[in-house]
């Protein structure tokens, strides 16, 4: 490849136009928590895995909505399904069910 003395990095902008809206709808049907999260961060704060590895249900949900499913899967890869986030969620989201629904959806693909 010719060296121009500079290179291009892919844009980091969230492009909502490119989000797979069917995937979001499917996931929201599997667990309404994808739509009802108010991003308070209680789940991340109480996460037992989050102390050691980047783990966050809040950010995973946001990543799904922004079409970044790989990021979403990454953010939950260290989850031990302890369920602590389920206890603190003010919207009563069944986070364990939400996490398993997400993994089932993308691992099945």
């Amino acid at each position: 490849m010719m060296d121009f003395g500079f290179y291009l990095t892919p844009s980091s902008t969230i492009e909502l136009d490119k989000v797979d809206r069917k995937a979001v709808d499917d996931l929201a049907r599997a667990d309404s928590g994808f739509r009802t999260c108010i991003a308070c961060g209680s789940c991340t704060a109480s996460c037992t895995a989050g102390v050691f590895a980047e783990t966050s249900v809040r950010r995973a949900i946001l990543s799904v909505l922004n079409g970044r499913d790989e990021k979403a899967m990454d953010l939950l890869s260290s989850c031990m399904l302890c369920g602590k986030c389920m206890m603190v969620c003010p919207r009563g989201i069944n986070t364990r069910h939400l996490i398993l629904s997400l993994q089932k959806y993308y691992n099945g693909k």
Partner: protein
Amino acid sequence: MAKNIIVIGGGPAGLEASARLDALGYNVFLVEKETRLGGHLARWDRLFPEGVPAAPVLEKLVSGTGNTKVMLESEVLSLSRLGKSFRISLTSGVSVIADAVLMTTGFDLFDASKKEEYGYGIYDHVVTNADIEGYFRTGKDPRIGSPERIGLVHCVGSRDEKAGCRNCSKVCCATAVKQACELKAKFPSATVYCFYMDLRMFGRGYEDLYLKAQKEYGIRFIRGRVSEVSEKIDKTLQVKAEDTLSSTPLKVSLDLLVLMAGMRPSEAGAKVGKMIRLGTGDDGYFNTSDGFTGMQATSVPGLFVAGASTGPKTLPDTLSEARAASALIHEYLRES
């Protein structure tokens, strides 16, 4: 002959409505279950957004009630219709026949000990917004001491399905920011944090209060809901939240934690509402005949509502509703 009106609940709404109806020439009976008038206002020290003292406001409301017959320590035993009128009997033994009834039963403060993870009533240095007002009024609270690190938690028992309360309590954001400034003024060397989910500074002067808290008082605002609190061996508190803006779990040690307990429908009010079959929504607050043009009317002719009995309200909102209800009652009684 002057017509009788019963006002149930001697808080700000009941006081203001009694004053207006008394001025219109009606016989007003104001029923209050406590030993004093004023409701929650009587427990408050200063009011947001400017921090004006609560006591003169209450004094003005009480002194305006004129010839109103105030019945303290009286709970409603029964309330029923009698033709077009109402019959009410009270625990004090008094019975009144009235032509109209106004429910100003207000709200209860959420019992913060129900959110066990915040440790109210368990840890030594966890207090509520109401406790802070009491502290500023009396200067005494052994839990407060001289804190160097203070945290205020917004939305305690509000916007929380687990606490059985989905709605926003409307007044806690402004109260938290007001109290954060007051605590900083009281303890100038302290670092003060506010943990919020959304800051709802909707009213006139509220955003100015927010700006003042940042600029003049150096309050640190953290966008994350506190998930748990634990007490260390030295009785200081460790608080965990996510700093959602930097997407990082956060912990901080505090000497004092203030919980912003939200509003719940009044239990005593609900009991009276049931007697007269006044419907409530899923949130437990009384239904009004419609949400825009009929905020003070109900499905029962002659029965009116005002203030926080129909949902969380600020003090100015509540007083406006009391005046609106008075005008509506006046119209109703003139026509009937």
